């Protein structure tokens, strides 16, 4: 973790008796062992880094709807100086709140809207998913991989696309069968979806859910599994291959320090493997040395900027060209195709990108 650099002014202004207040809005519970847990680890890193100069608070299980506006109001009433909303569904609420409260700073994870006091942050999870996909492609014996996916939205679709391209780089005949759960976090639905994939004959499972349930199903069926969000190896060590994990702490520390110094400016942060925002979880025991070497080599290329999974030629599910040779999809553009608006599956995915 980086130690925050505070100016003399900030050090005299923000003290234990007058702490800077940073608030986090969670869509799930910090105990989900996935997405929200990763943010909670980030919040605790903030608290540890700043000590009493920063007071952190959070609200969990906040629905993504009109109620979120009330929670934002409460946090502002409680004196929040900066509010991090950690799910896309809070974006409309945050845009309205940012306009109504110009003196409060807002940050929205995975969104697109920017205002002078509203910033966006996320990272290239898809690059990690490409590497997870390589591990899955090397592990499958019958070439059939299953993927438990939350919502049919571009964020998830690009992760499945990258995962599939990674798998097929190791096993050109591999297929990835997708089942949608229509929820970020619901262990019961995640279990059903994973079990339906096992019944369909897959021998490796991947997931983009907030809980490690898919891994428990894989372990029970004697299959392999790639996780998501956090290092979830302890939930199913025998099945574990690797996972894309998010390291939110350094980002939060950096932004809160900037806010305390008065140097915070709106931005669209998109971290990656290169700056340590995306980190591959440790490999499981069954990942062979050769596979590990191949994955680490690809990871080094991504970090060096010489490889991007979304560089053409990329063939769509239906055989047509999705990205022409020589073109790399931009992260986000308001119009035209970007990683943030991709709504089709690549060749090798079995499933419907419309849900």
């Amino acid at each position, binding site marked *: 973790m980086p130690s925050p650099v505070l100016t003399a002014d900030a050090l005299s202004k923000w003290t234990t008796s007058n702490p800077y207040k940073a608030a986090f809005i969670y869509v799930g519970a910090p105990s989900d062992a996935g997405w929200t847990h990763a943010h909670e680890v980030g919040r605790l890193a903030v608290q540890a880094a700043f000590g009493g100069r920063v007071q952190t608070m*959070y*609200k969990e*299980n906040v629905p993504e*709807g009109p*109620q979120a506006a*009330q929670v934002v109001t*409460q946090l502002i009433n*409680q004196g929040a100086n900066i509010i991090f909303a950690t799910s*896309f569904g809070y974006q409309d609420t945050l845009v309205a709140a940012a306009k109504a409260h110009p003196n409060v700073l807002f940050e929205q994870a995975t969104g697109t809207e920017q205002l002078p006091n509203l910033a966006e942050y996320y990272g290239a999870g898809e690059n990690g998913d490409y590497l997870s996909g390589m591990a899955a492609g090397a592990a499958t014996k019958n070439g059939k991989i299953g993927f438990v996916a939350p919502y049919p939205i571009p964020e998830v679709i690009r992760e499945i696309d990258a995962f599939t391209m990674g798998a097929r780089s190791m096993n050109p005949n591999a297929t990835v069968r997708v089942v949608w759960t229509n929820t970020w976090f619901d262990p019961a639905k995640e279990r059903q979806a994973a079990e339906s994939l096992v019944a369909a004959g897959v021998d490796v499972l991947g997931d983009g859910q907030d809980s490690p349930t898919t891994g428990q199903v894989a372990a029970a069926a004697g299959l392999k599994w790639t996780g998501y969000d956090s290092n979830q190896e302890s939930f199913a060590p025998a099945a574990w291959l690797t996972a894309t994990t998010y390291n939110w702490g350094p980002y939060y520390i950096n932004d809160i320090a900037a806010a305390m110094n008065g140097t915070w400016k709106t931005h669209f942060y998109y971290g990656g493997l290169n700056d340590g925002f995306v980190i591959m979880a440790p490999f499981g025991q069954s990942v062979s040395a050769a596979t590990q070497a191949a994955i680490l080599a690809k990871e080094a290329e991504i970090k060096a900027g010489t490889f991007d999974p979304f560089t053409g030629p990329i063939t769509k599910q239906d055989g047509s060209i999705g990205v022409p040779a020589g073109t790399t999809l931009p992260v986000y553009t*308001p119009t035209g195709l970007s990683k943030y608006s991709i709504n089709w599956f690549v060749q090798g995915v079995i499933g419907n990108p419309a849900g």
Partner: protein
Amino acid sequence: MISIERSLDTPRWQRVALPFVSLILAAIISGLVLAASGHDPIATYRQIYAASFTSPGALTSTFVYATPLLFTGLCVAVAFRMRVWNIGGEGQLYMGAIGASGAGLLLGGLPQPLLIPVMIVAGVLAGALWAMIPGLLRAYLQTNEILVSLMLNYVAGLVMYFLIYDSQSFWRDLTSPTALVFPTGKTLSASATWPGVVIGSFTLPTGFLVGVGVAVLLFVLVRGTRFGFEMRVMGDSTSAATYAGMRTRRIILAVMALSGGIAGLGGASQIGDFGHVLDPRGLQQAQYGYTGIVVAALALYNPLAVIVVSILIGALTNAGFALQGPSFPAGLVGTMEGIILFSVLGGEMLGRYRIRIGSPLRVAPADAEADPGR
């Protein structure tokens, strides 16, 4: 031998006082739980009161939570009183939201005074029609409406998902940059926004006013009309109603449509008062329909009491978000809600029944069990 039998001589003052005694008891038990988990009970209650009513914006927030609960509570109260077990308020609310947002989008050009009633009618119709499915099946095929109405909640949820995520439907926004990144519904026009009643810094949602009107109408309907009399007879005993020559099928269908229509009105209010967009995730995460069952039970299925209880539960939910944090787990708020429910329902039962030690002398009337709200 310990047996529980119906108490035949409960004085009226006791029935009125019981819920309040139960609430005080709940506060004491919750206080013990709070103290045991290292929180000062008095300070916590003060905080709850402030977060619910007195801090800036708190009262407005409380009514944001209370408004949908008023509708789903009334939906359950009217049905359960008549022993029609409609668990489908959740799905009927979704359908109401679909209907009202559809009407609001289609007729967005109409002036506000015209558009709001149109959205209300669309929401009521959609909710009522959805409730007619379990109603018709119960009336004509004697299926269990608990199961059918419950299952239809999931179907209604999937219909919403289909409209926003899985199709190019009329409800879905297909043009804005945000909608390309994450599927969302079309936002309704300004004239489809329900204004509410603004009193200083407090906004009373239009939907809440409408809901209060519905509650009063229901109270009058049940107490003062022939139809209400028939419903009450059927609520007491279906066979008695049949012997008296009442058309029980028609009454079941009417109750189901009424109940579903009220939930649908709640869906319309979600669109008009708060969301202004059909939002499947937000509506599903909120679970207003299921919480409505709790609201109705706490109100002892009395429509007027539902008004009060919806504000109380709305306040508690609102305060729950204010209280929770690193030192106050969200589960503790749920525990307190559970203690209140347990105390009020337990108190109600102790008030209506008595425990006899020894052999039972009198057999309780056959319809005494599972008989809400008399």
